[in-house]
C-alpha cells in the first residue's frame, strides 16, 4: 500500500512543484515505485518540469469523461523506471471534478505504488481541499519569509483539522548569506513557529530554475548541491536518521577575531 503524501504550502511560488518533482525522482532512484499526481488542475506544470509534455496523451479530463482507463493516464518518466506522472489538464475545472473521483483514482493506484505524491495548488480553496483530502500525510514547503511561514501555519491548522497528523516540513530556497545578513528569517524562526519536524533543507540554487526550464529535474544535475539535498530528504522520508550539519559560516565578528 502506498503512502499518500500531499505537498502543500498555502502560498504560491515557494517551490511545491519543484520539490514534488525532485523528491519523486530521488525516491524512484532509491527503487521505490512512485506516482506523482499533478493536482494543480487548471494549470498543469509537472509534465513541463519533467520534460514529459509531449508524452501526455490522456489527462484527468479524459479519465473523468471515460475516454481512457485510469491506467492509461499514467505517464512513464524518461529517466526513472519506477516513476509515473498523472498530469493535470488545462481544460478541467474543479467544478467538473468531484472529490470522490480523485479519491477513487488515488485508491486505484495505491496498490501499485510505494509512494503517491500529490502536488497541491496554492491557496486553501477547492484545489487544496481536493489534494489534501486524498492524502494520509503532508509535507509543507516553506521559505524563510514571514508571509510563507504565516500561510504555512494556516495550512497546517487546516490539515490537522482534516485529521492529517503526520506533517513534516521542508525549508526551500534557504540562502545562508541572506540568513547571515538578516535579509531572511532563520531556520529556527520557522521551526519555532510551525513546530513541525524538519524533513529537510533545499538551498536556493539557480540550477533549479534552469533545470525547471529545461525540463530536466535538477536532481539529475551533478553540478547542483540540490541532488544531495533531495537524496537526504528521501532517506529521511523512509525513516532513516540522516543528520544535519552545523553551519560553518562564521559571523563577521568571529571572522575578525578567529582568523
Amino acid at each position, binding site marked *: 500500500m502506498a503512502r499518500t503524501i500531499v505537498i502543500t504550502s498555502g502560498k504560491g511560488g515557494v517551490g511545491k512543484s519543484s520539490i514534488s518533482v525532485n523528491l519523486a525522482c530521488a525516491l524512484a532512484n532509491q527503487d521505490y515505485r512512485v506516482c506523482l499526481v499533478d493536482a494543480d488542475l487548471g494549470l498543469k506544470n509537472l509534465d513541463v518540469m519533467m520534460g514529459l509534455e509531449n508524452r501526455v496523451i490522456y489527462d484527468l479530463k479524459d479519465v473523468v469523461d471515460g475516454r481512457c482507463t485510469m491506467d492509461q493516464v499514467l505517464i512513464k518518466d524518461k529517466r526513472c523506471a519506477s516513476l509515473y506522472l498523472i498530469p493535470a489538464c488545462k481544460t478541467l475545472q474543479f467544478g467538473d471534478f468531484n472529490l470522490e473521483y480523485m479519491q477513487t483514482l488515488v485508491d486505484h493506484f495505491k496498490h501499485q505504488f510505494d509512494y503517491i505524491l500529490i502536488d497541491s495548488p496554492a491557496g486553501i480553496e477547492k484545489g487544496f481541499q481536493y489534494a489534501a483530502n486524498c492524502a494520509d500525510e503532508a509535507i509543507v514547503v516553506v521559505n524563510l519569509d514571514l508571509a510563507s511561514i*504565516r500561510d504555512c*501555519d*494556516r495550512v497546517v*491548522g487546516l490539515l490537522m483539522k482534516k485529521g492529517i497528523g503526520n506533517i513534516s516540513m521542508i525549508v526551500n530556497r534557504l540562502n545562508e548569506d541572506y540568513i547571515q545578513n538578516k535579509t531572511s528569517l532563520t531556520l529556527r524562526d520557522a521551526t519555532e*513557529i510551525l*513546530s513541525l519536524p524538519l524533513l529537510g533543507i533545499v*538551498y536556493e540554487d539557480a540550477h533549479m530554475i534552469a533545470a525547471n526550464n529545461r525540463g530536466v529535474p535538477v536532481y539529475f544535475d551533478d553540478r547542483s548541491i540540490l541532488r544531495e539535498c533531495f537524496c537526504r530528504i528521501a532517506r529521511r522520508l523512509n525513516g532513516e536518521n540522516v543528520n*544535519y550539519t*552545523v*553551519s560553518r559560516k562564521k559571523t563577521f565578528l568571529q571572522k575578525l577575531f578567529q582568523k
Partner: protein
Amino acid sequence: MKIQVKGINDHLLFVIDETLSEAEVLVGITDWIDNPLLHKEGYFIRAYFDFGQRLLSRQFLFALLDVLTTSQQVLFCGFNQPCPTKTEMTHLSMTIRNGEVVQADEDVVFDGRINPGGYLRVQGNVYALGEVRGVIEVHGPNAHISATHLVDATLCINQKRLEHVSTRTLRLYDDVSHDGDILEGDSDG
C-alpha cells in the same frame, strides 16, 4: 425544620431547604404565613426569601407571588438569585495556528503556543504559560490576562486593545546549543 424563619431587624428571612420540592415549599410558606405569630396589627411585615442554590422556575415564582398576595399578610421584598459561580478552570495545551479561534467559557490555563493570527477568546481569565504571538481576548467583569512570554502579541480586555506587547520572564534552560543554524550536508570536514 425545612423552612426556617429568622427575624432580622424589621424583616423576616425565610430560609428554604434546597431538598424540598417546589410544591412542598409553597405549602410550607403558606403554613408559615398563616401562622398568627407573624401577624402584626397595623402594618405588614417585610419578607425576604433565601432559596439557596435552587434554580427557580417561572411557574414557581408566580405561584409564590400568588400565595403572598392572596394571604395579604407579609410584604414581599425579594429573594436571592443563585448566581452561577465560576469555579471551573480549563487547561489547554495546544498550538493555536494562524486563522484558528479557540474559545472557552471559563478561566483558562494555556500552556501551548499562540501563533500570529491565532485567537484565544475566553469568558474569564487567561493564564498563558507558552509563547504568545497572536491574540488573547478576555471578557467579563475583572477579566485579566497573565502571561509569561509575549512576542508582539495583541491583548484584548473587554474591547480594550493592546497591540505589539512583548514581555519575557526569566527563562533558564540548558541549551544544547550550536553557534549557527543547522544545514543540509555531511557533517565532517
